């Protein structure tokens, strides 16, 4: 077992560096020569059409996949080492939630601190309660994941990662399959979490509106290669033709259709 990497501080957000990354499955190379850097506390968006390798990149960042070439480091430590992720408390919000279906929402949230024994049961109850309140999920505590709507599942998935008190938070398509109002709510949550918790965030999405509204910087992937990088304005402007080709304009709703009910968004 490799030694645990030294942690700068338990509270500081982390820096992610990806250098000449290549990920292959057998003879198929999915990611080619990917290099970028995510600064501490930044919201970094990875955008691209389906099949461009966004999720593979995210899974490589979290250590679920190993690079074939190149490197991924988090605070200077190799991302392939599980101890690196444990030290920085990296967490991933899965596209479909990946909630534990046999556990209630409350138990899903309490799972991490219980397993790692990071707190006593009374403290866990308090922490889970606060997190549920933060994401307006108090009424869902006793429900099972199968009883939740798509939007609630996403929020529970985010809540579960927040209980881990992460310093690096990765989101895989956080607004997919959600109506525009719920998508706006989720992007608001991502922004406020960065503001409140100073967490470094990497968001994978094909939602142009989300990217524009939350990203500090972003990259655009096409067939496993970075075709544009910079601020959202720079990337979207320089790659307008590519973006129009990839993303059907109809799905990019500029104005929420349910503006009247924004104060209490309906569940999807």
């Amino acid at each position: 077992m490799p030694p645990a990497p030294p942690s700068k501080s338990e509270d500081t957000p982390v820096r992610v560096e990806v250098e000449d990354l290549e990920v292959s499955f057998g003879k198929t190379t999915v990611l080619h020569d990917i290099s970028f850097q995510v600064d501490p506390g930044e919201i970094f968006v990875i955008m691209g059409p389906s099949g461009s390798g966004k999720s593979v990149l995210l899974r490589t960042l979290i250590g679920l996949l190993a690079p074939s070439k190149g490197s991924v480091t988090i605070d200077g430590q190799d991302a392939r080492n599980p101890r690196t992720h444990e030290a920085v408390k990296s967490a991933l919000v899965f596209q479909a939630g990946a909630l534990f279906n046999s556990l209630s929402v409350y138990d899903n949230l309490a799972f991490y601190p219980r397993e790692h024994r990071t707190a006593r049961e009374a403290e866990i109850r308090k922490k889970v309660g606060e997190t549920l309140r933060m994401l307006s999920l108090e009424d869902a505590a006793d429900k099972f994941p199968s009883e939740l709507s798509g939007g609630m599942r996403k929020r529970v998935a985010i809540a579960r990662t927040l209980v881990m008190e992460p310093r690096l938070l990765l989101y895989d398509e956080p607004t997919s399959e959600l109506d525009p109002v719920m998508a706006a709510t989720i992007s608001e949550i991502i922004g406020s979490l960065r503001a409140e918790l100073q967490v470094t965030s990497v968001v994978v999405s094909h939602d142009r509106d989300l990217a524009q509204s939350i990203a500090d910087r972003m990259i655009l992937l096409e067939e496993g290669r970075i075709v544009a990088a910079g601020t959202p304005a720079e990337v979207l402007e320089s790659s307008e033709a590519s973006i129009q080709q990839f993303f059907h304009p109809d799905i990019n709703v500029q104005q929420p259709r349910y503006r009247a009910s924004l104060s209490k968004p309906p569940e999807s």
Partner: protein
Amino acid sequence: MFQIAKRFLGGFGYNVALLGQVLRHLPALPRQLGRVVQYCGEIGYKTFPIVGILSFFIGAVLALQTGFALQQLGAQSFIGSIVGLSVARELAPVMTAFLLAGRVASATTAELASMKVYQEIDALRTMHIAPEKILVLPRLVAVLLVMPLLTMFSIFIGWLGGQVVSEFVSFIGLSPNIYWRGLMDFMTVEDVTDGLVKGEIFGFFVILIACAQGLATRGGPREIGFAVTRSVVIGMIFILFTDYFITRAQL
């Protein structure tokens, strides 16, 4: 042929690797005691009734068959020894392991495969929790604890089934005293312990195979079904295959 050999070696290697992972987490066992108790209930307690029913009728049919043959030679008094040895050394461990494969291994594979397909296993890894530690280790420990009890129970109920048939079937008509005396005269403690050792080996590997099949599942709901079928079939073939070699070693 090459593909089959490659798949076999790949599967074998995966099982060995999984066992290695589990052994690495052995020091964490004390913190998994709650799960061990839970799985003891699921693997053992809930399997007792079906093991009892199966074992009773296996002992009964064995007594019926041997009784029919032996009564023509006037040698019914040997029924106890034949049933005793057959059940203890062979039928109880094999049939209990078969039931384990059908009832517990299938459920285990289904659960783990569904967790894999719906990314719950990945979620555990991103929460820095090793699935091998909380899903496999406690199950293997539980099966090691309950398998001797299940096999012993199966042996005793099988003997009882043989005795009931020997006493109440008219063409055998063997008194319980003669049945049990015949059984005890021929049986040694080693006969029973050999059966228990077999049961322990079968149970351990049937659950290991079930966990490996579940964790190796890729795809969707259809693959969950395939994984369950594979788990049960491989488990049963493993039982029959190793039974021969263990028996050779024990004789």
